[in-house]
């Protein structure tokens, strides 16, 4: 089965090339079929690999295809690493990717850029696979850049809208900031270890670096800056909410389920390095927790259905980093998995709602959709419960595992984690109730147009909701009678952190969090269903804290003032002083000097032959004198 591995990324690449070259000439049905089939076949091959890993026949295989760079100092093979971690990520990418491809075929069916959409979606799947399959940092970096590019192309998919283009640029630039950190970290590793192959780097790291030295802390921090950019952590998170400008399935695939988890994958992959740098771990933990709480508070008051989901994604990514910072690498990846299921489900569900609402995204204009969109309603409910963390849905297991590790570290961290979870529950149910309960608040035209989405869109929703229900059983903790299968699955790649809590404490913590979540759901129900409150409309005066949250803490404005404005001011200054005053005047001065000297000196050409002769003789005599003096 390993000889088919090269097909996994190659097939989406072939799809990309086919659609890129012939896409505009092919009928939509064929374009969609090509895109979906390539990803589906990749998924099936990945499943055989997963079977191999589960049966134990594949432990950690490096497959080298060709030498990418082979010089004296640098040896970089183009090779894939097939181990439980990469196979798991590949399964998520191709599996969820296929479902979203399928959904997109329905969602985008009326769009004129249908083929272009699938071209980049296929390229994205290819890049993401390269990212997780590479056996060295450079192949990962190539994929890392590839997904960033596809994200840019797909956020700005409707390129006729300037705001969307700006959102795309913002995402790309913010990612670049992070990528620079990643690149520096990578080069530092190369300087210190002399190789970028995972096997060599992670094998050598404990010998080369002593735990906690500046070298390893700087390297891990640089790599983490890359993760901040890609996975939308403070301070580089602002691109993700804006990235909702892209088509909704893109948000589901790229900006929720896969690409943004690249940072978490990278850290889990480099867990050897991070374990050597306790300072970086604490830093990641703090950043993760802050992001989780910060984004959740913003999510509380947003009115755009996709914006709420976007902030919830940022918040959940914060949770994942929180887990990584606590040293619970497998737990972080477990949350990546469950989050991929329920967040893809929620995004696709919101896409279905937006589809039915003829493009309307404001939850204040929705309401009462549960009768018109029964399947979307049910699946969305499952996704919402999963993210809120009610057993036995997927989110409960992964979130409570994180919270248990947090409690082991310090009860304060646990309390803050719970606070984030409660806010998540509140805004998710707020959105859910406002969308599906109460009276319809949209226009008459929208009401007449309401309809359930076709099967091609609801089928992925149903599959994902099954996964959102069942996904959690991958990692049932010991205390609930499981044996944390997922942790053991990954134990060859990342160590499972000890959880030394009493079973009674653990059960108590779980009960507290579940009880609080239920209370919050009831509060949300009372506010938005019983009292039928609707968020105030645009332009009305808000209380100060509400206004600050609604405007996302004015972070965008702050960045604008800090970076864009200063940059623009500096550019202006340089333009006036250096460009105009320095370079321009120099160039113009030379030109003017030449003109002036020409105008003046040409007067020497009198036309008088005797003068010429005189000057000639004078010149000869001068030459003779100079020669005489020199000799």
């Amino acid at each position: 089965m390993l000889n088919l591995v090269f097909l996994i990324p190659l097939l989406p690449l072939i799809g990309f090339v086919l659609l890129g070259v012939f896409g505009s000439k092919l009928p939509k049905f064929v374009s969609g079929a090509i895109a979906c089939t390539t990803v589906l076949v990749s998924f099936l091959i990945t499943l055989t690999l997963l079977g191999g890993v589960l049966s134990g026949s594949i432990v950690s295989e490096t497959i080298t295809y060709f030498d990418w760079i082979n010089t004296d100092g640098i040896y970089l093979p183009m090779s894939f690493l097939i181990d439980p971690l990469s196979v798991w990520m590949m399964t998520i990418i191709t599996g969820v990717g296929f479902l979203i491809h399928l959904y997109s075929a329905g969602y985008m069916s009326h769009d004129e850029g249908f083929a272009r959409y699938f071209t980049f979606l296929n390229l994205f799947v290819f890049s993401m696979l390269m990212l997780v399959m590479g056996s060295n940092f450079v192949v990962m970096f190539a994929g890392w850049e590839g997904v960033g590019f596809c994200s840019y192309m797909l956020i700005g998919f409707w390129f006729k809208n300037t705001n969307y283009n700006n959102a795309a640029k913002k995402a790309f630039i913010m990612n670049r900031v992070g990528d620079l950190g990643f690149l520096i970290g990578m080069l530092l590793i190369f300087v210190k270890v002399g190789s970028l192959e995972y096997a060599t780097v992670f094998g050598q790291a404990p010998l080369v670096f002593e735990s906690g030295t500046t070298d390893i802390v700087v390297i891990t921090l640089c790599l983490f800056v890359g993760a901040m950019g890609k996975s939308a952590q403070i301070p580089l998170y602002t691109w993700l909410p804006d990235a909702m400008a892209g088509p909704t399935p893109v948000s589901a695939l790229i900006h929720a389920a896969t690409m943004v988890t690249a940072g978490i994958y990278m850290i889990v992959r480099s867990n050897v390095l991070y374990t050597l740098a306790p300072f970086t771990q604490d830093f990641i933990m703090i950043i993760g927790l802050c992001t989780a709480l910060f984004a959740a508070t913003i999510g509380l008051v947003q009115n755009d259905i996709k914006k709420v989901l976007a902030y919830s994604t940022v918040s959940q990514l914060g949770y994942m980093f929180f887990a990584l910072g606590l040293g619970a690498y497998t737990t972080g990846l477990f949350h990546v998995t469950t989050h991929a299921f329920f967040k893809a489900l929620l995004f696709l569900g919101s896409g279905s709602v937006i589809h039915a609402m003829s493009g309307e995204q404001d939850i204040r204009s929705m309401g009462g959709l549960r009768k018109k969109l029964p399947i979307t309603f049910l699946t969305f409910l499952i996704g919402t419960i999963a993210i809120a963390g009610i057993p036995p849905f997927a989110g409960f297991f992964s979130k409570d595992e994180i919270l248990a590790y947090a409690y082991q570290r310090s009860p304060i961290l646990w309390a803050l984690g719970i606070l984030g979870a409660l806010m998540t529950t509140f805004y998710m149910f707020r959105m859910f109730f406002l969308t599906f309960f109460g009276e319809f608040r949209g226009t008459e035209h929208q009401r007449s147009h309401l309809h359930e989405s076709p099967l091609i869109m609801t089928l992925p929703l149903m599959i994902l909701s099954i996964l959102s229900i069942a996904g959690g059983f991958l990692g049932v903790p010991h205390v609930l009678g499981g044996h944390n299968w997922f942790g053991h699955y990954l134990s060859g790649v990342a160590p499972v952190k000890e959880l030394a809590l009493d079973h009674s404490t653990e059960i108590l913590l779980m009960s507290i969090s579940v009880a609080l979540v239920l209370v919050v759901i009831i509060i949300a129900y009372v506010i938005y269903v019983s009292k039928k409150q609707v968020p105030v409309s645009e332009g009305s005066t808000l209380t100060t804290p509400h206004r600050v949250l609604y405007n996302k803490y004015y972070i965008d404005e702050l960045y604008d003032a800090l970076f864009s404005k200063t940059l623009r001011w500096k550019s202006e200054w340089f333009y006036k002083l250096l460009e105009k005053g320095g370079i321009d005047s120099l160039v113009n001065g030379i030109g003017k000097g030449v003109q002036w000297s020409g105008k003046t000196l040409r007067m020497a050409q009198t036309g008088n032959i005797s003068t010429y002769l005189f000057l000639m003789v004078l010149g000869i005599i001068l030459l003779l004198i100079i020669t005489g003096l020199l000799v």
Partner: protein
Amino acid sequence: MENLFSNTLDGYLFLASLLFAIGVLGILIRRNIIIIFMCVELMLSAVNLLLTAFSVHHNDPNGQVFVFFIMAVAAAEITIGLAILVMIYRNTGSVSIDSLKKLKW
């Protein structure tokens, strides 16, 4: 004066330099193109003289052969020069060097 011309070559050198200087001066001072032309020829002859003198001094006949060639070429050159002169006179009605002033600025 006896000392000055004691060496035979010195006398030729002196004479040739004198002729050359006269030619240069003539070119600079005179306005008549014919005279200037003659002065040019005078300078050429001075050089020829020098060449012959050195040829004898070094006992090498090559120099004298060269002089013959130079004189042959000079004859050809003089015809062209005179022809140009004739054309100048026909066009401007003058052989003064100041009549040719149009080529300026």
